[in-house]
C-alpha cells in the first residue's frame, strides 16, 4: 500500500501541495503543507479572476512541490502516490493541477488519484483530530460553497443534505465587505469590525428559515441585499454608517442560520459529530456560536485549525490517503477535471 502521498490542489486561487504519511493503522500524518496564493492579484477586482488564477498556478506549481519536499525532508522518489483535486472548481485552474499531477505520476511511475475538493475539506480534519466517526455531519462554508453533508465514509460515501440556493456564505461576506468599503476578501475585515459592533443592532433577515422553506438549504442573497438597502438608506439620510454594528449584525445572521440548520440536521439525522470546514470556518462568531449550540445539543464539534480550513494541498493529500487506504482504484491518466464534480463522487 502506498505510504507517502502527495496532494495537489488548484481549484481556485491557491496552489497547494501537501505531503502525508499513511500508517498501517489507517492514521494519516501531515508532513508538509505549502501554499502559494494569488489572492492579492484578485483583490482590486473584488473576486477571483480565473485567467489570472490559472496563470499563477502554472508559475507556482513546480516551486510549490519543491518547497513541500524541502519542508518534509523527502525527495520525489519517496512519493508513493499522487492525489489531485479533480473538481469542483474553476476549469482552467483545475486543468493546471490535474495536468501536473498526471505528469508527476507518469514520471515517478506511481498511481494517480483524482479526488473531490469538497471531500478534501472534510478529510483534512483527520490530520488534526484523528479518524472521523461514522456517520458524521459536515458543514462546508467557503467563498465557493455552503453545504451540509452527511459523511458515512470519507473515502466512499458522502451525501448532500442541503446547500445554498444562491450565494455561498463567503461570497456574501465579500459582497457585504464591498458595501461597507472594506477590503477583499471580506471575511477577515468583517470579522474584525464585528468584534466592536452590536450583533443585535440591526435585525437582518435569516434566509430560508420560513416554515415552507427547505429545512437544510441556505440562501444569502436576500441578506446581502438587505444589508445594502440598510446602508444606502442610512447614507440617503446623511448618517454615518455604523460599520461595526452592520458587520456584527450581518455576521450574526450568517452564523445563526448556519449553526441552527447544522444542529437541527444533526438532531433529526441522529448524528452526534459536526465538522465545520472551509474558509469561513475560521470566522470567530461562527465557531463560537457553533460551540455553544453543539454543547447544548450534546454534539461533538470539530473545527480544523484555520490553516487547514482554507484551500491547501494537505486536504487533498489527506483525502488521497483515505482513498488509498480504502483500496479504491487509481484514476486513469486520461481523466479530465470536472468543474461541477458532485460531492458524492469522492474519487474518479
Amino acid at each position, binding site marked *: 500500500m502506498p505510504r507517502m502521498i502527495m496532494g495537489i490542489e488548484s481549484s481556485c486561487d491557491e496552489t497547494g501541495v501537501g505531503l502525508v504519511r499513511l500508517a498501517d493503522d489507517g492514521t494519516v500524518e501531515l508532513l508538509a503543507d505549502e501554499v502559494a496564493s494569488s489572492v492579492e492579484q484578485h483583490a*482590486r*477586482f*473584488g473576486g477571483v*479572476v480565473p*485567467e*489570472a488564477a*490559472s*496563470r499563477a*498556478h*502554472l508559475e507556482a*506549481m*513546480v516551486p510549490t*512541490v*519543491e518547497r513541500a519536499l524541502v519542508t518534509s525532508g523527502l525527495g*520525489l522518489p519517496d512519493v508513493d502516490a499522487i492525489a489531485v483535486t479533480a473538481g469542483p472548481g474553476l*476549469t*482552467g485552474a483545475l*486543468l*493546471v493541477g*490535474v*495536468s*501536473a*499531477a*498526471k*505528469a*508527476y505520476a*507518469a*514520471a*515517478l511511475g506511481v498511481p494517480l488519484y483524482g479526488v473531490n475538493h469538497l471531500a478534501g475539506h472534510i478529510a483534512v480534519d483527520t490530520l488534526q483530530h484523528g479518524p472521523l466517526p461514522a456517520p458524521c455531519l459536515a458543514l462546508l462554508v467557503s467563498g465557493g460553497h455552503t453545504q451540509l453533508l452527511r459523511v458515512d465514509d470519507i473515502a466512499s460515501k458522502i451525501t448532500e443534505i442541503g446547500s445554498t440556493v444562491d450565494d455561498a456564505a463567503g461570497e456574501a461576506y465579500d459582497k457585504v465587505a*464591498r*458595501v461597507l468599503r472594506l477590503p477583499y476578501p471580506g471575511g477577515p475585515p468583517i470579522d474584525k469590525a464585528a468584534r466592536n459592533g452590536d450583533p443585535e443592532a440591526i435585525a437582518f433577515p435569516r434566509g430560508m428559515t420560513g416554515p415552507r422553506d427547505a429545512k437544510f438549504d441556505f440562501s444569502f442573497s436576500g441578506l446581502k*441585499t438587505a444589508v*445594502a*438597502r440598510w446602508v*444606502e*438608506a442610512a447614507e*440617503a439620510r446623511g448618517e454615518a454608517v455604523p460599520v461595526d454594528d452592520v458587520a456584527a449584525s450581518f455576521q450574526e445572521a450568517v452564523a445563526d442560520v448556519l449553526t441552527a440548520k447544522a444542529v437541527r440536521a444533526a438532531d433529526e439525522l441522529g448524528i452526534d459529530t459536526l465538522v465545520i470546514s472551509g474558509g469561513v470556518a475560521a470566522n470567530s462568531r461562527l465557531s463560537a456560536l457553533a460551540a455553544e449550540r453543539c454543547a447544548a445539543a450534546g454534539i461533538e464539534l470539530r473545527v480544523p485549525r484555520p490553516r487547514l480550513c482554507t484551500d491547501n494541498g494537505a486536504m487533498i493529500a489527506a483525502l488521497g490517503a483515505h482513498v488509498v487506504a480504502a483500496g479504491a482504484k487509481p484514476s486513469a*491518466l*486520461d*481523466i*479530465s*477535471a470536472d468543474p461541477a464534480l458532485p460531492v458524492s463522487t469522492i474519487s474518479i
Partner: protein
Amino acid sequence: MLVLAIDTATPAVTAGVVAVRPEGSTVLAERVTLDARAHGELLTPHVLDAVREAGLTLRDLDAIACGVGPGPYTGLRAGMVTAAALAHGLDIAAYPVCSLDAIAAGVTADEPFLVLTDARRREVYWAAYDARGVRTDGPHVARPAELDSPVQRVVEHERPAPYGIAAVAREAVLAGERPAPLTPLYLRRPDAAEPGARKRVTTP
C-alpha cells in the same frame, strides 16, 4: 540525445520523441490529436504512447522541448505544466520553444515568410521569418487586416510538429545549455475589469 517534444499552443495535442544528433534529427514516434478541449486529458497519455512506440521509457529521455505559445487556449498551460512536472520528476531539462518558431522550422522556403496562428477573437498570432527560417519580427497578436509586415508569403493553419519543436531547441540541447525558464508567451493581459462605483440596490 532523446528529446520529448510537446506543444499545446494550437488545437492540436502534440507529443513526440525525437532523436537529436549533431548530424541530424529523427522522429522516433509521435502522437497528435486535433481537439482544443482535450489537452488536459490526452497529453500525458500521448507522451506515454509515443515513448512506448519509440521502444523507450520516460527514464530514457534526456531533455524536453516544450512549445510556450503564443496560444489562445487554456490548454497551453496543460502542456507547459506537464513539461515542467515531467522535467522535475525525471530530473532533466525542459527547453522553452516559441510555438511559431516550431512551425517555421518545418517550412521549406527560399524567401521570407510569415507564420500565423489563430488567436481567436478575430485576431492572429504572427511572426516573420527570413528565408533561412530565422525569426525577424514578432511574435505579435493583431487583427489580420492590421497586420503590419512587408512580407508576402504567409504560412497559416499549421501546427507545431515534434520535428520542428525539437529542431528549435536542438542547439541548446546538444550543447547541454541551461534552459531558459518555461514562461508562456501570452501577449494578452487577462480579461478583468476593475469594479466601478458600487451598484445601488435601491433607487435614489
